[in-house]
């Protein structure tokens, strides 16, 4: 569910982050908003549905991680509020004050969300100071130096945050290339190409660093070499982006980016399994086994969850089909 969230809302956030870079005129800015307007809310629901599912399936993990990551979570909430209201209210008043105001908040909140989500993932991978109570409270930052003084924002998490930002900028630009035409389309394609190089470099760097700070990853890949298929998907996806960009296959470029994201996220989960929230002191880690809810609840939950996912798949295909093709900005559109 989280992977789907990143794939879907990722391109909304990416579009926001690149908003001012690719769209120069009012018309183009409306096109950016129109390309995500009808779908951003549904995309964001994956985050809420994932959070709710986490709650009932792994209540101890939900309680521990949400209270431990208190301040950054609250900031994420505020950014989500800013992002949502910017998209929805931007087009209500045709004024040279109103529109640029909301464009700014749309862009900055999308950009910061991308960094925060990357940092959040990095925290999970790196591990947090859980103790025997099953709780932790991590300082927002310490000193950003290499070493043991970790913080929610430190050198490692910010590095991954920057990687996440570049990845989502690439992802969002590829979406915009697919959904728009003209100068906007071309600028989006070029930006996607530049971001690609950053993504390549940072993926290599961050992967190397991650293996050295999270020993479970190497252990898991050695024990179950079949797991290597996941990073292979990621690499194939990344290569695919470059290839399809050059061939100007807009849809396939975007789908390759989706493959990269999917491969990366599943690799992370594979790397920390069976932990769901690693602890700096490994005996206190929260795992799939010690954080889960009772069996009855899990069984019943799985049953309705499968039905729900089937319905959601149906809705999403329906909505994306309805709004397929390049955006045109007229009075009836989200613009």
């Amino acid at each position, binding site marked *: 569910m989280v992977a789907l969230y990143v794939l879907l809302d990722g391109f909304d956030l990416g579009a926001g982050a690149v908003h001012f870079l690719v769209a120069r005129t009012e018309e183009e800015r409306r096109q950016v908003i129109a390309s995500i307007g009808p779908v951003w809310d*549904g995309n964001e629901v994956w985050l809420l549905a994932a959070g709710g599912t986490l*709650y009932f399936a792994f209540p101890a993990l939900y309680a*521990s991680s949400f209270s431990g990551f208190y301040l950054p979570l609250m900031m994420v*909430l505020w950014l989500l*509020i800013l992002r949502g209201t910017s998209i929805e209210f931007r087009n209500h008043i045709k004024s040279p004050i109103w529109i640029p105001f909301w464009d700014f908040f749309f862009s900055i909140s999308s950009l910061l969300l991308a960094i925060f989500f990357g940092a959040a993932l990095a925290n999970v991978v790196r591990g947090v100071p859980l103790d025997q109570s099953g*709780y932790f409270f991590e300082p927002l930052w310490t000193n950003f130096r290499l070493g043991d003084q970790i913080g929610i924002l430190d050198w490692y998490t910010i590095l991954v945050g920057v990687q996440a930002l570049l990845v989502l900028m690439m992802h969002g630009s590829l979406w915009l290339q697919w959904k728009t035409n003209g100068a906007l389309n071309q600028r989006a394609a070029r930006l996607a190409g530049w971001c690609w190089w950053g993504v390549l470099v940072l993926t290599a760097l961050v992967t190397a660093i991650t293996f050295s700070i999270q020993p479970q990853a190497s252990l898991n890949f050695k024990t179950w070499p079949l797991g290597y298929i996941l990073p292979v998907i990621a690499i194939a996806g990344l290569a695919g982006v470059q290839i399809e960009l050059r061939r100007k296959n807009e849809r396939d470029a975007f789908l390759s980016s989706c493959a990269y994201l999917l491969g990366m996220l599943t690799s992370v989960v594979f790397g920390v399994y069976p932990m769901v929230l690693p602890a700096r002191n490994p005996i206190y880690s929260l795992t799939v086994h010690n954080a889960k809810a*009772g069996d009855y609840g899990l069984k019943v939950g799985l049953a*309705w969850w499968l039905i729900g996912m089937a319905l959601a798949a149906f809705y999403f295909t329906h*909505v994306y089909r309805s709004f397929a093709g390049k955006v045109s900005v007229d009075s009836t559109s989200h613009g």
Partner: protein
Amino acid sequence: MGLGLLIVILKSIALRTGDEHFSRAARFWAKIFGINFAIGVVTGIPMEFQFGTNWAEFSKAAGGVIGQTLAMEGVFSFFLESTFLGLFLYGEKKLGRVGHWWAAFLVFVGSWLSGYFIVATDAWMQHPVGYQLGAHHEIELTSFWGLLLNKWALWQYAHTMLGAVQTGCFVMAAVGAFYILSHRDPFYGRTFLKIGVLVGALAALLQLSPSGDMQGKMITQYQPTTLAAMEGLFESQDGAPLAILGQPNVAKRTLDNPLVVPNMLSFLTYKKWTAHVQGLNDFPEDQWPDKIELLYFSYHVMVGLGTMFIAIMVLSAFLLWRKKLFEARWMLWVIMLSVPLPYIANTAGWLTAELGRQPWLIYGLMRTAHGFSPRVNAGNAWFTLIGFMGLYTVLAILWLFLVYREIEIGPEPEARPAAEALDPSVAA
């Protein structure tokens, strides 16, 4: 949620009669609905997260149960609402008349379903069912349908949704009254008034009985301390009076300046004028809600306003039936000025429910004092509370501004001139 229902009604009439007037009316209200929905979404998300951030001990213990209803809200309602909202707000041309009706209907269904899951969550906290205690103090779900069909949930849902419907009706009727009183859009004004008043009168009556009455009876049976506190009944007695007015004096265990109806509380709770009703003195003080005065006043504000709503709506409906409503300027003024009141009544109602449940977080199972996040200190909590207060104040001002603007702009102009539109010989 209330407006969602009214929009479906407008679109149904449009589809049935083919009269474009109702389609235009629906389109106007859709704009306001869109603004409400956006603010609703962004302010609703923090609620899902706050169980974990600020109430971690509660979440760890009860997540296996209430996580189910919260997750179902996300998986079933939110996907449905958000998918069809875009189509409803921006897809009318693409979908055609029937398709667009379905979009409106599915948004309405999604939002009402969402309401059910949330109410079921609160209902379980008020009246826990379908669970057992696990080995490490966690609460395990044992009955999925028990959770979903909790008797408390069914009545609380009816009561909550009727409150939402009344809010929608008052707003629609008030805008109608405004358009008539300010001599603009009289044709739309009459439509909004008619629908707002007819649906509102029905909702106001059902709010009192059976939904309000049944809630009261359940509180009597399962939360007797709450009943005593909210009614200001300090002493157990047969033939207990109903306090209409009076300031609770908790130190002296009495009501100052009471205005009471003798025996009424006994009748309302047990259907017998002489029934024995337990007062606060029957329960140990550590089981009393800790904010008795606020609880008492929230409850009385809610009931007082609810009674006013019945009076306003039923009287307006009567005047409508006698074809006198549109000329009764005094009544139109009352309706128009009443617009903030349902918001206050709904808030007062939720305060009653939540303050009434104190000192329990999960009634009888976990006290509020034991449910908070042990690692989040007061400094952090204040920081984020102030942050939210600031952000929400800005959102509220934004909301008022945008909604007022839409009301000012008004619906699309009618095809025919206004004078002809008001001619009683022309079918309305």
